[in-house]
C-alpha cells in the first residue's frame, strides 16, 4: 500500500533542505524554486503542452487540452520534490526543469521532442539573460539567436537534459507517481455546492496552478492543498462557508486547519512584492555556476533551523 502512495517530504527533509545546508538562504531557495517552475510553465506554453486556466465549468470540453497541462503540472511537482534531496549548488534549476518536463511528458503519455524542448529553454534563458544585460538599459530590443545546428551548445544541453532526467529518477528512487489536484477540486466544489459560481471555480483552479510554484505539493496531501485553494477563493470572493467549530467545512475533506492555513501562506507569499534586484539575481542563478558564484560572492548563509 505504502509504495503506491505518492511520497511527501519527511520532517527532516523539510527542516533542512540540501540547498540550505549549502548555505543558500531559505528565501532565495524559495524564489529559485518558483522561478524554475515558471520556466517549466513557460516552456510548456511554448511547446503547446499547456493551456493556462481552463474554465472549470466547461471542464468536459477542455479535457483534451487539460491532457497536455497535466505534463506541466507533473513536471513542476517532480521539480519541487527534487530539491528536497538535492542542493541547487549541485544542479541548476534550468537543467532540472528541462529534465522534469521531459520526464513528465513521458509519464503523461504525451512525449515531447528533445530538440524542441532544448530550443525552447534556450530561448527562455536568452530572454532572461537579456533582461539583466546592459542592453535592456539602452532599450535594444530582444532578439533571439538560434543555436547553430552543429554547434556544441545543443549537445551540451542535451547531455545536461539526459543527466537531469536520470538524476531525478535516481534521487527520487523512481517514485515518480504524481497525483494532481484538479479532479479532487471538482468533487469538493460539488460537495460544497459551489459549481454554479464560476468565479469561485476559476479562482480556486488558479490557486491550485499557482501553488505548483511553491513546494506544497511535496509537503501536503492533495486534499489539504485543494481545501486551501477553496479557502482562498471563497474568502476573496466573500462566499460564506460554515467555518465555526464544530462545523468546519474543511474537516469534511480530512484537512487540518493548521495545514490548510500553512498552504495558504505558501501561496500568498508568491504574490508578495520583490525588489528589482531580488528578481534580477534569479536570472543569473539558473545554472549551478550562477548559484556557486553567488555563494562565493555572498558567503554561505547558514541559518539555524
Amino acid at each position, binding site marked *: 500500500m*505504502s509504495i503506491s502512495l505518492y511520497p511527501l517530504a519527511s520532517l527532516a527533509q523539510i527542516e533542512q533542505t540540501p540547498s540550505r545546508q549549502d548555505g543558500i538562504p531559505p528565501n532565495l531557495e524559495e524564489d529559485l524554486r518558483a522561478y524554475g517552475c515558471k520556466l517549466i510553465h513557460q516552456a510548456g506554453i511554448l511547446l503547446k503542452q499547456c493551456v493556462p486556466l481552463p474554465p472549470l465549468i466547461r471542464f468536459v470540453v477542455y479535457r483534451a487540452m487539460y491532457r497536455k497541462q497535466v505534463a506541466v503540472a507533473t513536471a513542476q511537482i517532480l521539480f519541487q520534490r527534487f530539491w528536497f534531496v538535492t542542493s541547487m549548488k549541485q544542479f541548476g534549476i534550468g537543467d532540472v526543469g528541462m529534465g522534469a518536463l521531459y520526464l513528465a511528458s513521458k509519464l503523461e503519455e504525451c512525449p515531447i521532442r528533445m530538440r524542441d524542448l532544448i530550443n525552447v529553454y534556450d530561448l527562455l534563458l536568452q530572454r532572461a539573460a537579456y533582461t539583466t544585460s546592459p542592453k535592456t538599459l539602452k532599450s535594444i530590443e530582444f532578439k533571439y539567436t538560434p543555436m547553430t545546428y552543429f554547434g556544441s551548445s545543443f549537445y551540451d544541453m542535451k547531455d545536461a537534459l539526459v543527466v537531469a532526467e536520470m538524476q531525478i529518477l535516481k534521487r527520487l528512487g523512481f517514485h515518480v507517481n504524481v497525483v494532481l489536484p484538479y479532479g479532487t477540486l471538482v468533487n469538493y466544489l460539488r460537495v460544497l455546492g459551489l459549481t454554479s459560481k464560476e468565479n469561485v471555480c476559476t479562482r480556486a483552479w488558479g490557486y491550485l496552478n499557482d501553488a505548483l510554484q511553491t513546494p506544497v505539493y511535496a509537503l501536503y496531501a492533495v486534499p489539504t492543498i485543494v481545501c486551501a485553494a477553496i479557502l482562498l477563493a471563497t474568502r476573496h470572493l466573500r462566499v460564506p462557508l460554515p467555518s465555526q467549530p*464544530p462545523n468546519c*467545512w474543511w474537516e469534511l475533506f480530512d484537512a487540518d486547519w*493548521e495545514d490548510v492555513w500553512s498552504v495558504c501562506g505558501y501561496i500568498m507569499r508568491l504574490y508578495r512584492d520583490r525588489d528589482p534586484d531580488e528578481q534580477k539575481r534569479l536570472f543569473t542563478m539558473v545554472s549551478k555556476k550562477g548559484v556557486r558564484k553567488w555563494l562565493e560572492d555572498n558567503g554561505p548563509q547558514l541559518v539555524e533551523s
Partner: protein
Amino acid sequence: MSASASETGTSTPSRKRSRWDTHEDIQDEVIEIPRPKRRSKSRRSQSVSRSHNPTPEPRPQSRVQVQRKRPLHSIYVPPRTYHPPFAPSRSVYCYERLNSIEEGSYGVVFRARDKETGDIVALKKLKLDEEKHGFPITALREINALMVCQHENVVGIREVVVGETLTQVFIVMDFIEHDLKMLLTVMPAPFLQSEIKTLLRQLLSAVAFCHERWILHRDLKTSNLLMNNRGTIKVADFGLARRYGDPVGVGGLTQLVVTLWYRAPEILLGETIYSTAVDMWSVGCIFAELLLKEPLFQAKGEIEMLSMIFKLLGPPTSSTWPDYDKLPLAKTINLPAPHPSQLRQKFPHITNAGVDLLSHMLTYDPEERISAVEALQHPYFKESPFPKHPDLFGSFPSVAAGEKRRKAFDSPTAPVRAVDYKLLTDFDAP
C-alpha cells in the same frame, strides 16, 4: 447558496482578521452539505506562521467543549505519515547475484539475494544502452504500473536500484519459483477444475485491480503468470503495460502489443483505440490453455490467427459484432461461411457455466466482452467443484532457481490428488 449577506452577525467576532478575510461572511447553517458531518472536534488551532499574513487566533469556544478523539481518516485520505519520504535509489551492490533466470528482448533477469535481509529476489536489468530519447518510456510505464498495482496476485516490486553508471538500472521484484507456461509443459496431468478455478480467480482479481487503476497489461499470457509453491499466481512483466484513459495519447495506441496467440481480434484488425477488453480476451485464451494444457490458438501469423478464431467461434456477424465493418482492416479479410461457435465441442468436459464464462471472455464485440469484475461474479466459481485453497496445491521443483526435477516426479501422482480433491471440494466456497 442564497446566503443573505445581511446575516453576518454570526461571523466569528473574536477572531483576528487576516488580510483576506476582512470582508468575509461566515455563516453556519446556510449551506446544506449533502453529507453527514463525520466529526466534530475541538482543536486548538495553532497557527503555523510561515506566512507573513496574520494568523487566526485559537477558536474561542473550542476549549469549553468535551475533547473528542478525532475519528480515523477517510480511506481515500490516509494520514500524512503514511506517505513515504523521498528516498534515493539504493545501489545494486546491496544484492548478491546468484544465477540468471532468463534473457528477454527487453532485459536480463537475475536471481539475487538481499545482503541485508537474506531475501531472495529477482533483479531485472533494463536495457538502456544507446537510448536516443533519454530514459525509455516503456521502462517508465513498467515501473509505474508495478508501483501502482500492488496486489496479492501481481508480482511485487520492491525498489529500483542503480549500478555505477547511469545506464545500469534494475527493477527488484519478489522472486517467484515458476511460470505457468513452464509448469503446464512439465506437469504430467492438467490442472484439476478446482485448481483452474483458483488460478483463474486470482488472475481475474489481479486484472480487475489493474484496470481499476487505469493500467492495461497488454501482454497477458501463461509465460507471464508466475506461480509460487503455495498455489498463488502473480501477474508479471508489465513491459508493455500503459495507462489508458480518455482521451488516449497522441495517435492512439499501438497495435504491436500482446503475444500473437493471446491477441484480441480488434487489435488484429487494426483498431487503435482499444481498452480493458483486450486483456480480457487474453484471460480467455489463458483459461482455455489451462483446460487444454496447450495454447488455444497456435497461429504462425496474424491472418492464420484470425482464421483460427473464426473457425472456433464462427465468423463475426452484424449481431455479434456490430462495429466490425468500421475496423481498419475489416475489408481486407474474407470471412468464411457462417457457422456456429465450436466452443462446446472443443471443451466437452467442462460444465455449461464454464463454457458460458469462456464464451463471454472470447466475445467478438469488445463492448460486450465480460469485464474482470463481472467475471469474478460468474456462476462458474460458485458451482461444484469449488475453487481449491491455494495452500493445498502441489509444489514443483523450480527451474528458475536452478532446481532439478526429481525422478520421482514422473511417477503417477493421481491418487494423492484424488485425496486432496475430496478433502477440498467443500470448505473453500468463495
